[in-house]
């Protein structure tokens, strides 16, 4: 059985943006470009539309199939902060299997037992059970000795440590970034430097141990400067961001909008601009949705009592395409950030349209206009800080390993 996607614009992080066909056999890409279509192929005419690698969404909080399908996401890196925590091989293995065949879930195992930041978790056993990275979850490991041992041990296993970078001593109890908005609203707030402090320590420890580290979300100018300098020194660091910190600043929490309560919190406008610069100059490697659906019982509360997080899976592609429209990124680089780079962090050989790669493919319409309406989300909840925003770009069809995801 051969699948042929024809007459498409192909957006490949390696091959660039071209026109042509993609042939898929046995779940693998066997040819791309101007190639002949076998007579027995199932043909999908993609004229005027774009074919790109399916999104690899690194660091989602919850498995939410309908949202991932709508968002063009074929693989997720699942955060260890589950209930129970992903620190046990049985739990990791179950998480790794439940999505197949349509959605491949790559668990990020807890780096410390119970994510408590004290004792090393059974990282090697969890990796053999299917974990593709280890992580600190939504928290920072306060004890530098523990963090150093986590990094050293993970280096032995050749897995990346995915870290959350906020100094817990500064962020305890905070729901916002210090600044005019937090002061006017009377919100408990932490200084933005909490992020750079945490990054600085973790980078030094990663450099010292030779470990690979991925900072899941970097959101401040000082943080980007540290990452940029570390990359120049050859430190094995990568970092990510969600569209929220690229398109919104702290002003979005005015009126106590709990849908804009995120972790890390929204930052000052200057930091938002620094994030756009970091996208343009390649400092940021990964764009992720940070998908964390939260129902009214967790969000229709006073701001300080609400849970953080946004339902981001369905809006990741159109919000990312805004960066292409604004000429911060080319379309091919966008898919490096959405597919190839996150796959690499997880040690996966996928995320491109190259021959021989898994046929994880997304067909989308770059121009299709629509309006973000949280209540209409397919996700488990509609908690989006972008409610009402008109956007362009919609996923039409999705294939995981050559098999259509419906």
């Amino acid at each position, binding site marked *: 059985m051969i699948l042929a996607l024809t007459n498409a614009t192909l957006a490949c992080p390696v091959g660039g943006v071209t026109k042509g066909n993609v042939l898929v056999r046995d779940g693998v890409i066997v040819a791309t470009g101007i190639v002949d279509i076998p007579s027995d192929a199932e043909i999908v005419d993609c004229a005027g539309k774009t074919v790109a690698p399916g999104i690899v969404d690194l660091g989602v909080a919850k498995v939410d199939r309908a949202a991932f399908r709508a968002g063009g996401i074929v693989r997720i890196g699942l955060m260890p902060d589950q209930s129970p925590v992903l620190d046990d091989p049985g739990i990791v293995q179950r998480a790794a299997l439940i999505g197949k065949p349509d959605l491949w879930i790559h668990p990020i195992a807890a780096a410390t037992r119970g994510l408590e930041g004290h004792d090393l978790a059974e990282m090697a056993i969890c990796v053999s059970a299917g974990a593709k990275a280890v992580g600190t979850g939504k928290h920072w490991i306060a004890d530098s000795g523990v963090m150093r041992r986590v990094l050293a041990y993970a280096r032995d296993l050749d897995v990346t440590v995915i870290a959350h970078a906020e100094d817990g001593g500064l962020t305890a109890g905070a729901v916002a970034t210090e600044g005019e908005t937090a002061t006017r609203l009377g919100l408990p707030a932490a200084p933005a430097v909490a992020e750079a402090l945490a990054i600085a320590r973790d980078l030094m420890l990663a450099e010292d141990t030779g470990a690979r580290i991925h900072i899941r979300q970097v959101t401040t100018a000082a943080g980007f400067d540290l990452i940029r300098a570390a990359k120049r020194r050859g430190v094995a660091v990568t970092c990510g961001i969600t569209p929220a910190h690229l398109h919104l600043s702290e002003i979005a929490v005015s009126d106590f909008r709990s849908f804009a309560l995120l972790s890390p919190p929204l930052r000052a406008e200057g930091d938002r601009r620094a994030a756009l610069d970091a996208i343009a100059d390649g400092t940021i490697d990964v764009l992720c949705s940070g998908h964390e659906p939260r129902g009214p019982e967790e969000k229709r509360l006073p701001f*300080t*009592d609400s849970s953080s997080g946004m339902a981001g899976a369905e809006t990741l592609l159109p919000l990312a395409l805004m960066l292409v429209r604004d000429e911060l990124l080319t379309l091919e680089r966008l898919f490096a950030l959405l597919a190839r780079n996150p796959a690499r962090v997880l040690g996966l050989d996928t995320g491109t349209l190259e021959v021989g790669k898994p046929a994880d493919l997304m067909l989308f319409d770059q121009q299709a206009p629509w309006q973000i309406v949280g209540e209409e989300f397919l996700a488990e909840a509609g908690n989006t800080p972008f409610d009402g925003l008109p956007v362009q770009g919609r996923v039409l069809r999705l294939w995981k390993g050559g098999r259509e995801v419906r």
Partner: protein
Amino acid sequence: MRTSDHRPAALIEGGAVFPHRHLTGIDGLQPHEIAFLLDEAETWVGANRTHATPDKRLAGLTQINAFFENSTRTLLSFEIAGKRLGADVVNMHAAQSSVKKGETLIDTAMTLNAMRADVIVIRHMSSGAVRLIADKVDCPVLNAGDGRHEHPTQALLDALTIRRRKGSIAGQRVVICGDLLHSRVARSNILALTALAAEVRVCAPSTLMPPMIERMGVTAFTDFDKALEGADVVMMLRLQNERMDGAYVPSTREYRLRYGLTLDRLAKAAPDALVMHPGPMNRGVEIDSAVADHARSAITEQVEMGVAVRMACLDVLTRRARGVEGWA
């Protein structure tokens, strides 16, 4: 940045002189609207003092005081204000724990609404909680303090006290000193006093100073003696004991050394400077008894103005429902 009464519908509710359905904060009020509330309150000061013929204009209306955080004096003040106007006043004490574990705040709001309250007075420990409730109920909501956000009736009673003692608020140099970081009283006072053209100085150790407070139109000081120079009004804030045992300030005696209002310190202010405190006071810490009980102290007068201001707010916010001419 105007953040209150964000729904356009609010503009057509209430009367032309005070086109707001709720009082969730000073933010969003125009200077003339603040002055209107002060004028209204002024009329009740005299009535309260003379025990004149009772004016039961809120008779038959139900006022619910929903206090999710402990309070003695504010609750009492709202209760007395409602009762003087003839309202049926019901107090609801909701302990923090039961609310957090049980029904959500919105469920509580819907419950209060279903009981057909005519006005709801709310105190809550979370910033923004009062506005969340206001969006869900059909009757006017009065903020009696939400987290660190606002405490508008306190700011109004402070403004009324200053206006009565000083003749006007414009141009007065007002120093607000204490735990600004955690203080809703400070935020509302800054908004009200700057709206009424006072010169506002704020003073606190940097550990208790909200970042970028200058953006609210005030001058920030960490040196109390400098802040006091030429002050017409000195407004002290209460500092909770648990914040003075090393968390934000090393000790109470060290706090008193740098920020305690003593007679010596008061001498740096203008000779006729007015001393204020929202209470309850930590005598001997942020304010010495000799200052608190001084002739220039307006502290008990503030309490008196509190009742008048709350009567005015209850009256004004219920005018539309009562069908008062020009408000319905």
